[in-house]
């Protein structure tokens, strides 16, 4: 399987009374809390951590887009992607993704992604996303149009990459007389496309039908991923093909130290800062963002969300984060990757307040003692889909040295 290093670039200095004073780390959290001088150090440090991942032999690095929040201070992941295109040498650069309805016109995404692909020599993985619920508050974009705008924009971006311009686009949301973006991407007919999803049937079917990659949105109980990945495989089957494990990605916080006990001692407070402060207000479902039935369903599933988890035991049982010695982390990741049938591990190595020295130590231990076994591990391409899930999940061939 392939190993990626994912970075959220979080804000690591919330006021001590944050939890009493603020209901959310999103949208309305006053930006007076942001300190630009400290931000200068953070951005440069975080970029160094992704450059380190490239040097350590990770298969790729990942950045993503969020606005007006402390959880991830990357309103423009394309700026980060552009820097990484220059500062990394061989890793894939996965920008997962650009929230298409927030770009006007969305051909902007076709242009900027093509720039990153060209600068990096074809190393871009293009993430196309609807955008999170909070983004629709932050940008005042009508959430009842979110899906329709996303679909129109996605088709437009793909067409802009693969069809000779200039051509006209007359859609419901955008009317463009001359679509003819320069540059064109190196990857043909277009860069690899990944789409993150939180389990909605609409997204799963879309990704399956187009044969794109489906990235499971993190911080839910392991059962949630199992169910969603199985339903993805089922959807691929209905579209007449068998899903490749490399169409699936699993995003997960990871921390490696010398022993299990040391790992928890070093990591626990940073993980809980993330879970109880930065996640606060992440799952907001504006009206029409998805169907009333899905909104009601997700609101109930929040009982199994990382932000509600209080103890190490709950974290370990639910697989919300993989923490421990190299041996523990390696065994758990192989085991979970096997049962999930997933070919891309997107590890979140820095998280919350985790400082630079511990982040780098964990990444180095991971790279030297965990990653080789994972990169040699070939996920079972015959994983069962949907209703067959109850069958024993692993075949002998899926257990290499």
């Amino acid at each position: 399987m392939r190993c990626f290093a994912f970075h959220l670039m979080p804000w690591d200095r919330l006021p001590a009374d944050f939890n009493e004073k603020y209901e959310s780390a999103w949208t309305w959290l006053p930006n007076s809390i942001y300190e630009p001088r400290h931000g200068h150090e953070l951005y440069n440090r975080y970029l160094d951590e992704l450059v380190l991942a490239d040097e350590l032999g990770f298969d790729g690095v990942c950045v993503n887009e969020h606005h007006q929040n402390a959880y991830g201070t990357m309103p423009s992941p394309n700026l980060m992607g552009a820097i990484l295109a220059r500062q990394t040498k061989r890793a894939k650069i996965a920008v997962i993704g650009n929230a298409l309805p927030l770009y006007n016109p969305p051909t902007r995404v076709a242009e900027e992604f093509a720039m990153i692909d060209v600068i990096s020599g074809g190393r871009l993985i293009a993430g196309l996303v609807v955008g999170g619920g909070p983004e629709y508050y932050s940008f005042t974009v009508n959430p009842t149009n979110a899906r329709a705008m996303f679909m129109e924009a996605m088709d437009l971006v793909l067409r802009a990459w693969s069809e000779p311009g200039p051509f006209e686009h007359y859609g419901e949301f955008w009317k463009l007389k001359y679509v003819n973006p320069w540059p064109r991407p190196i990857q043909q007919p277009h860069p690899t496309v990944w789409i993150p999803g939180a389990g909605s049937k609409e997204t799963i079917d879309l990704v399956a039908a187009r044969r794109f990659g489906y990235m499971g949105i993190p911080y839910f109980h392991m059962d949630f991923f199992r169910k969603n990945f199985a339903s993805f495989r089922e959807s691929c089957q209905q579209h007449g093909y068998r899903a490749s494990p490399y169409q699936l990605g699993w995003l997960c916080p990871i921390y490696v130290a010398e022993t299990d006990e040391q790992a928890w001692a070093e990591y626990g407070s940073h993980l809980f800062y993330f879970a109880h402060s930065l996640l606060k207000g992440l799952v907001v479902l504006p009206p029409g963002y998805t169907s009333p039935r899905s909104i009601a369903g997700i609101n109930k599933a929040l009982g199994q969300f990382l932000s509600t988890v209080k103890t190490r035991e709950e974290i370990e049982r639910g697989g919300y984060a993989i923490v421990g010695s190299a041996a523990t982390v390696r065994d758990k990741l192989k085991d979970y990757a096997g049962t999930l049938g997933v070919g891309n591990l997107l590890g979140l190595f820095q998280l919350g307040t985790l400082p630079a020295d511990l982040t780098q130590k964990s990444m180095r231990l991971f790279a030297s003692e965990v990653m080789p076994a994972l990169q040699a591990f070939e996920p079972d391409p015959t994983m069962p889909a949907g209703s067959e899930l109850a069958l024993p999940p692993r075949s002998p061939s899926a257990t290499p040295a």
Partner: protein
Amino acid sequence: MPETRFVQVGDRKIQLTVGGQGPPLLYLHSAGGETDWFPFVERLAERHTVYLPAHPGFALSTGLESIRDIYDYAWHYEDLLATLGLDRVPIVGLSLGAWLACELAILRPNRVERLVLVNAAGLRVPGAPMAELFIDDLAKLKQLLFFDQSSPGIELLMPSGLDDPRILMWLRAREATARVGWNPYLHNPRLPQHLHRIGCPALVLWGRQDRLIPLAHGEFYASRLPHARLEIIEQCGHMPPFEKPAEFAAAIHRFLASEGGG
């Protein structure tokens, strides 16, 4: 007894409840989607044949796909009234419904005999911002919508939580409201310049302690509408039909029975 049926309006199937006795009255509901035969409707129905339709996308009415903004809703009511053969009716609208009634009165003045705007949306008044309606927290919404937090109207109007079977209709109503009211937020920036066209008698009725749409909006409507009067209901929030049903109905009966709308 009131009767609920479905009316075909173009491609849309519209849920319509009609009941009561007397001349017709059209009630346009709020973002809350109040389309049941609530006690306040019963009071209006003592003197009127009340028409209580659900806007497209609310309750069991279909057709939200072709609604993009408040004008689409206004044109929809032009079509519905034509379908029902109601040439000219008095309209009572609450909040979103009151905004909609204004837009209809501007597009089709001859359809609207008299206008009652209750805690109306539709305006942006500098210095008197509207609060955020699009939140999930039902306890907070309750505080936003009602002056008296023990009002029996709360239970009538709102689901109590995620396990209340009414939650799906409530979420559906929020979606339809967002469709026309997300951006610009619950208003039409071009509405003020057209208010002078509404020549019919109008009553602007307002719960004084409205925390969602402050009274200043009512004062603005009353000052810009050519034949309007502002009447305030004391100790009442955004939802007078639920919080003060008797005062609400009495004010409307007085207005509709008066000569020339005085």
